[in-house]
């Protein structure tokens, strides 16, 4: 039943525009793969190619071990949840759910049984006689989900299914989708532009930009070891700070000079690529450049900065400050009392720097992996079980910094 999905050298060209370029992606059977990227990055086109709504210009797409390039949508055994839900407005919920099975010629007794089961799973039991126009946004979303679930397909495709819901409902449905995936373990390809959805739901995340796949990995690795400036800037909120720097040596060891300081690289990190004395972009996550007073002993570097903007978020505050000619954003504790124009000391943990080639934007520093990916994955699964109330929390992994919250 479970099928893996494979994109091999897939291109999609619309006229003069290349929407997807040389995509190579393998989705394991039963995996929840999130495709994330800004608008127009080719993620929806990729999904539509898998659904059969678009044909790839070059390359091969396989579901299981079957080449599906020329297979029309109805023979692909995939189910899709659309951003707009695309419910049939002239049919009631029951008929909407039953449509797919009837199209496949299922016996009406079986259809009836499965509609009831699906409605129960999604809490739609009392709404079966209603038309889509008589449902709330969240209910419509469930019907759209049910229409996909009932088919028991090989692959689920979801095209920004939560983006039309309001913030509270979105968080709730996010948890529910994760729970459904835990339960049915159907191979899922989920498209979103929301990095919070990507981080919280994906077994793995594929980041796309301008039609090109940038990086595919588990959320934690994506966060800790982004391969280039784009991924580093896209994943994480507030955004990673990018600061101009120069590679140098200090006492015979590689070091980087930025914001007036020379910082030797941590011995556990590994430099990759040609890095001799070149210009680099230093990446610092907002949680790695902290208020001196709140920083731990690892944050051995201190910078003096002038506060520009304070954004209280309740459980923390984002402070944007001017520091040696650079603007940096850092996470402060909630009631620091820091005001605009005030001078503060910021402390930086040199072990948590990211380094990128200033010219190509590629990462040149391989940081140590924070715990094994397997351990993190099981922590995530445990977390999904717990968060049935729909809370938006991250698994309490020891080395991984606190992830961004819903904005």
């Amino acid at each position: 039943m479970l099928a893996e999905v494979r994109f091999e050298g897939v291109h999609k060209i619309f006229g003069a525009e290349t929407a997807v370029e040389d995509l190579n992606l393998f989705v394991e059977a039963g995996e929840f793969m999130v495709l994330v990227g800004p608008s127009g990055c080719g993620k929806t086109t990729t999904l539509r190619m898998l659904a059969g709504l678009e044909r790839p210009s070059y390359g091969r797409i396989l579901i299981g071990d079957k080449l599906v390039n020329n297979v029309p949508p109805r023979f692909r055994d995939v189910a899709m949840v659309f951003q707009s839900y695309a419910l049939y407005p002239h049919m009631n919920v029951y008929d909407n759910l039953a449509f797919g099975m009837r199209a496949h010629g299922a016996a009406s007794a079986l259809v009836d049984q499965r509609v009831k089961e699906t409605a129960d799973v999604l809490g739609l039991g009392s709404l079966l006689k209603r038309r889509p126009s008589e449902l709330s946004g969240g209910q419509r979303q469930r019907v759209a989900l049910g229409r996909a679930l009932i088919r028991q397909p090989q692959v689920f495709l979801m095209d920004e299914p939560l983006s039309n819901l309001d913030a509270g409902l979105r968080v709730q449905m996010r948890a529910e989708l994760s729970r459904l995936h835990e339960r049915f373990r159907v191979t899922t390809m989920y498209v979103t532009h929301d990095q919070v959805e990507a981080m919280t739901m994906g077994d793995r995340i594929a980041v796309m930009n301008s039609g090109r796949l940038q990086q595919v990995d588990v959320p934690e690795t994506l966060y800790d070891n982004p391969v280039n400036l784009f991924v580093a800037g896209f994943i994480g909120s507030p955004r990673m700070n990018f600061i101009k720097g120069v590679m140098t040596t200090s006492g015979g060891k590689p070091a980087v000079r930025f914001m007036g300081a020379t910082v030797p690289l941590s011995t556990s990190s590994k430099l990759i690529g040609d890095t001799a004395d070149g210009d680099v972009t230093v990446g610092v996550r907002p949680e790695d450049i902290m208020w001196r007073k709140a920083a731990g002993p690892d944050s051995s570097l201190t910078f003096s900065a002038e506060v520009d903007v304070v954004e209280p978020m309740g459980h923390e505050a984002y402070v944007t400050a001017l520091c040696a000619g650079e603007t940096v954003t850092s996470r402060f504790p909630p009631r620091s009392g820091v005001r605009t124009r005030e001078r503060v000391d910021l402390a930086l943990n040199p072990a948590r720097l990211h380094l990128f080639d200033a010219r190509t934007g590629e990462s040149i520093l391989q940081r140590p992996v924070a715990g094994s990916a397997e351990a993190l994955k099981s922590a995530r699964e445990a977390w999904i079980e717990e968060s049935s109330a729909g809370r938006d929390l991250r698994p309490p992994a020891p080395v991984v910094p606190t992830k961004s919250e819903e904005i």
Partner: protein
Amino acid sequence: MSAVQARRIKADPSLIVVPYRRVSVAALATNVVLVLLGCFFVLPMLWMIFASLDSNPDWAIKLPSLTLANFTDVIGTAGALSSFRSSLILAGATTVVTTVLAVLAAYPLSRMHIPFKRGFMLGILFASGLPVSMLVVPVYQLYVYLGWLDSLYTTALFLAASSLPFAIWLMKNFIDAVPAELEHAAAIDGASTFRILRQVVLPLTIPGIAVTAIYTFINAWGAFIIPFVLNSNPDDQPGPVEIYNFMGSHGLFKFGDLAVFSLLFSLPVIVLYLFMSRYFSGAFSFSGAVRG
């Protein structure tokens, strides 16, 4: 009493706004023109109603000396009934042919990528604006050649052909309004093209089909020149031709019968218009299908 005391407000006469209207020349002129135009439509109808009830009608609009004799006169004659039957056959056949073809033509025009589609659609729009009477002579020649003259059904065929351009244009707009995502969803759900058309597209375009059908029917119901030229069989003349006959070939003008016939003949049109306006007023919509 609350801490905030309600203050008494004295009525200030200078603050009372008196609504006033100023009659502008433009507004006056517009209204006069509209009233005149209205008269052109209302006066003949008024004559029709009055004359149909008058025992001694003539050209003038006058209060009738009431009688129902004209009605019994018209309904009693076989000619009136047969012309109703002829009109029904002619307009019905035209409507069926036009609507079926318009749906089948409009669906691919709406959904598929077709070379020169824009040019084709503009051509259709242009064709729908051409006066059909222009074509009457060559079409007559053609019908003579084919031996198609004097039949209501072959006449309906040409009426259908001439109403098709506008019907396709109308139908395409209605199909355009059905979100393509519904079809994509149905395709992924496993439905064949025929099932998608039958269970998703057609049910959602019923208002459009109804409007197209009614519009075609009304036009064919009132068509005069085409049936007049192509069908000279005196036994199955449709209504408009029959009205013409009232005025000319019977020699004497029977104003009362003419008025009654015209009145009865326009009733189906009025009913259908009322019916059509229901669809246009949005009694049916796509709400709940997609959000956006």
